[in-house]
């Protein structure tokens, strides 16, 4: 080492006030984006939707199990909405976990708590800086994914209008607006997952659990969605909040689930961050806990607590009013069938006069089970067609297999013998998606 240089340190001015949360925030952002997982995540958020759209472009199949999945060859917005659906199930928990789950635990792993806390930052600054950095990164990646998916969809398929969840063709402008609103709304549940990742990271001091925690909760949500008919527990799960936007895509939007899940997310964020701060501020930053080796005592405690919570939630899934009933399924699918039938007729050049409608009498039931709750349903649609110059009405029966989810969204599919194949030729001879083949819809479960 060379001898000390010119400027005498003692003569230098004393360090001034607190570094503040802004500097801590910027430092955390720098750290976050210097890490490979963050960069890879950003790369995937940009490239992923384009790759997805490109793959769809070169094959005829569709991800029809996802809402709007059957329409990915007809409207670029469907691609963005399918990606939003996938992200809500798995993508967002992974993003939240990767960006926030290791945020606190990494300091334990690197042994850097002492390094940070012997600078001019308070505990509050560090905590706030880390939270803001995680929030910024998560929101940034989410919006990047949103923009990328929209651009990819429009670039590969085009900005065509899209059949909404009531079976009505919605204009491009309206669908674009609703798609953007949906992505922006989903930032709230993503932040809720982020808060949980922070809590896992702080409570367990273990990066692995911090990263995997949100994903495990997403998996738990998926499992709980399969059991119980009550709406209360389902509405309290963060994963359910990703379905809130579905109500925007029907002709007469319903906002109840959107508002409630939004409040639930705010509650999750508040509770998680409060708990995180209480744990964090009480902590003694002793070297003996910063050995660089994972500490499994806290994780085991957290896992045990989580197991109890899961058991309670599982038992409570039937509490409250039933969201999915035969009446609601029938009331949704009947008018929608009317709409998509008229749409199909319009596509082949048979334009019905304004206000024209079919008389549809739906009858929905479940095979071998009580006619309530999510699962596989069977709907018989008795359609009375006006027959001029003949008997006044002729009845036609169409049978749909309907897969209904806890959130009131469904996918209805009928054998091709009834309504034709997945594609058909329009009036100009062009192959288009048959709107009757797969019907997506949503009804309000509240």
């Amino acid at each position, binding site marked *: *080492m*060379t*001898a*000390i*240089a010119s*400027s*005498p*340190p*003692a*003569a*230098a*001015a*004393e*360090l*001034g*006030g*607190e*570094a*503040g949360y802004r*500097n*801590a925030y*910027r*430092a955390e952002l*720098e*750290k976050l984006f*210097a*890490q*490979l997982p963050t960069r890879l995540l950003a790369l995937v958020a940009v490239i992923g939707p384009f790759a997805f759209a490109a793959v769809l472009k070169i094959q005829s199949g569709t991800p029809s199990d996802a809402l709007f999945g059957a329409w990915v060859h007809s409207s670029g917005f469907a691609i963005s909405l399918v990606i939003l659906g996938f992200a809500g199930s798995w993508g967002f928990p992974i993003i939240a976990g990767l960006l926030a789950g290791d945020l606190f635990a990494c300091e334990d792993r*690197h*042994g*850097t708590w*002492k*390094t*940070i*806390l*012997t*600078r*001019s*930052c*308070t*505990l509050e600054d560090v905590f706030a800086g880390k939270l803001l950095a995680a929030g910024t990164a998560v929101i940034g990646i989410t919006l990047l994914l949103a923009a990328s998916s929209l651009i990819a969809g429009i670039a590969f398929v085009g900005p065509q209008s899209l059949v909404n969840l009531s079976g009505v063709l919605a204009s491009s402008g309206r669908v674009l607006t609703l798609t953007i609103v949906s992505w922006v709304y989903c930032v709230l549940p993503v932040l809720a997952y982020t808060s949980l990742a922070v809590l896992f990271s702080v409570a367990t001091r273990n990066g692995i659990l911090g990263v995997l925690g949100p994903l495990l909760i997403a998996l738990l949500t998926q499992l709980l969605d399969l059991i119980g008919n009550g709406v209360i527990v389902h509405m309290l799960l963060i994963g359910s909040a990703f379905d809130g936007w579905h109500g925007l895509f029907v002709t007469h939007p319903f906002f109840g689930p959107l508002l409630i899940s939004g409040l639930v997310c705010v509650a999750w964020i508040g509770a998680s961050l409060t708990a995180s701060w209480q744990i964090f501020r009480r902590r*003694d*930053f*002793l*070297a003996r806990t*910063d050995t660089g080796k994972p500490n499994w005592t806290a994780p085991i405690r957290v896992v045990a607590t989580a197991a109890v919570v899961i058991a309670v939630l599982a038992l409570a899934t039937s509490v409250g009013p039933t969201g999915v009933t035969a009446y609601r399924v029938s009331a949704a699918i009947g008018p929608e069938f009317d709409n998509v039938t008229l749409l199909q007729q319009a596509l082949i050049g048979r334009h019905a006069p304004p206000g024209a409608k079919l008389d549809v009498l739906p009858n929905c039931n479940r095979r071998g089970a009580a006619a309530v709750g999510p699962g596989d349903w069977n709907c018989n649609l008795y359609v009375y067609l006006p027959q001029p110059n003949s008997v006044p009405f002729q009845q036609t029966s169409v049978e749909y297999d309907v897969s209904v989810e806890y959130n009131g969204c469904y996918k209805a599919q009928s054998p091709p013998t009834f309504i034709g194949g997945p594609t058909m030729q329009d009036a100009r001879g062009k192959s288009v998606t048959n709107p009757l083949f797969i019907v997506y819809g949503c009804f309000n479960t509240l």
Partner: protein
Amino acid sequence: MDAVRASGLVKRFESTTAVDCVDLLVRPGEVRGLLGPNGAGKTTLLRILFGLIRPDAGRTELLGRELAGLGTTALHGVGGFVEEPCFYAYLSGRANLALLARLDGNKATPQQIDDALSRVELGDRADDRVSGYSTGMRQRLGIAAALLRQPRLLLLDEPTSGLDPAGTRAVAALVEQLAAHGVAVLLSSHQIGELEKVCTAYTVLRAGRVVWDGTAAEIAARAPASAYALATSDDDRALAIAAEQAGVRAQRSPRGALVIAAQPDRLDAFVLALGDARVIIRRLELLVSQLESLFFALTADESLDHLEPHELADKVLAAA
């Protein structure tokens, strides 16, 4: 204004009292060595001074400001590290310092960061990831990180751990120059030799308690004799001369040379006497310094009074 003024500090971990009623005073420009064997409480004391843990009792003022809880306001003007300095392995040395500078409120400019890196001879490796740094390089980066804060009080825990002899000398030189500019330095170490060159005062801890506190001059006056290895052209004659010298004890070492115990001024007279007797000194090597003698005497569990010089030397060397 004192750099450190601590009184009655107590810190317990369950049934262990790591720091037991410790008083500590460090003045500006003073380089104080904090000595003690492993487990004596040095690191715990430094953690308290950094505000990383709360003492169970006692009061601490750093640069005239009371250190309360885990606040960092009292740390303004304080730099250093406790235990081994830790950094983000995936960032470069320069990026780590830039990040820490940001946590200091952006007080350090990029030029100052470069200067700090140059002063610890990491300038050419500044853009390498810390994951590729050796222990010594991390130690030097820790010192650079401390210097970025332009400290008036420097707290260093085993600063030369992992450094080669040249690095150790450079750290000593750096500490001396900082002290010359009025920086108070508290150096914790269990390697006594490295401190003796730079410290102007010492505090010796044993089992959490202060067992000795004083200046380097007081050590010179009150510490036990130093021990030296001596090889001459005529060891029998040298032993005989030693026996005639007041304050000099000599023994034949089992390893072949002689071991001499004497205060420095007595040793000078003995060396002159050897010259007068035409006994050629082929080797005279310090085995145990006064500080080491004192340290060992204060921290050993047994009485040292009965030990012959070579036995004392052997014990001290074994302990080191």
